[in-house]
């Protein structure tokens, strides 16, 4: 029997791995990979709640997941376009070196 806690533990582990990836990569595309992993873990939690938690409208969790996937797709398109545009300007998408606004 799968239980809600099992799903939540898997989601929490996936979230912490995604957090580590997002914070430890220097390349902007690598950071985006970490963000996508975190969004995936959130979606997994939403699906788990929709499946296991008592609610008058149980399908809502899955609808939220569809919306999160939509927003993630839009965000990925804009972020990758930004990465390509920054690369054209600076020949680098190393976020440690994109510090023009810093001082």
């Amino acid at each position: 029997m799968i239980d809600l806690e099992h799903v939540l533990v898997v989601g929490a582990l996936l979230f912490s791995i995604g957090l580590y990836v997002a914070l430890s990569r220097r390349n902007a595309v690598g950071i985006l990979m970490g963000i996508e992993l975190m969004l995936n873990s959130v979606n997994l939690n939403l699906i788990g709640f929709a499946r296991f938690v008592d609610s008058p409208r149980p399908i809502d969790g899955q609808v939220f997941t569809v919306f999160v996937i939509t927003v993630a797709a839009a965000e990925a398109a804009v972020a990758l376009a930004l990465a390509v545009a920054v690369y054209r300007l600076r020949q680098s998408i190393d976020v440690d070196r994109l510090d023009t606004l810093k001082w």
Partner: protein
Amino acid sequence: MDDTAVVVAFWLLALLTLGSALMVAVVRDLVHAVLFLILSFVGVAGLYITLSADFVAVVQVLVYAGAISVLMLFAILLTPRSARDNAPVPYAAPIAALAGLVGAVVVFVALKTDWAKVEDDRFGSTAEAIGAALIDPFVLPFEVASLLLVVAMVGAIILVRPPEEGP
């Protein structure tokens, strides 16, 4: 579906998802990282199927494993001279500690909370129910989402368009 088979499939898919996510964190070349990321997305789609969310699983494969991964591959290939080797950051140990702390807190809260659970599997085929929910309670977010997609698409095209010659 047979209950034991579902449980075994759930844990195997969880192992696949977490293992390939770990490989995304460990592997140095970004192209390899994207390939492991695709594997992780497919694993999450399988987890959705074991949680009786068939429509969302299909959307996950189409959008994440199909579209977003290809976008990432294109972005990596279009930025050829940027460093891809994930050069070590000086503060990797604090980051790992922070990520572990966040994961531990979420696991603790998930295990301590008394969830109002139901045991029975309420969903048959979910595509019809999701479509009805998108029309009845969620029609405004649905329209806003389509507007957001148009704006993001136009914005991405304008961002990567080559600069025009003077006015």
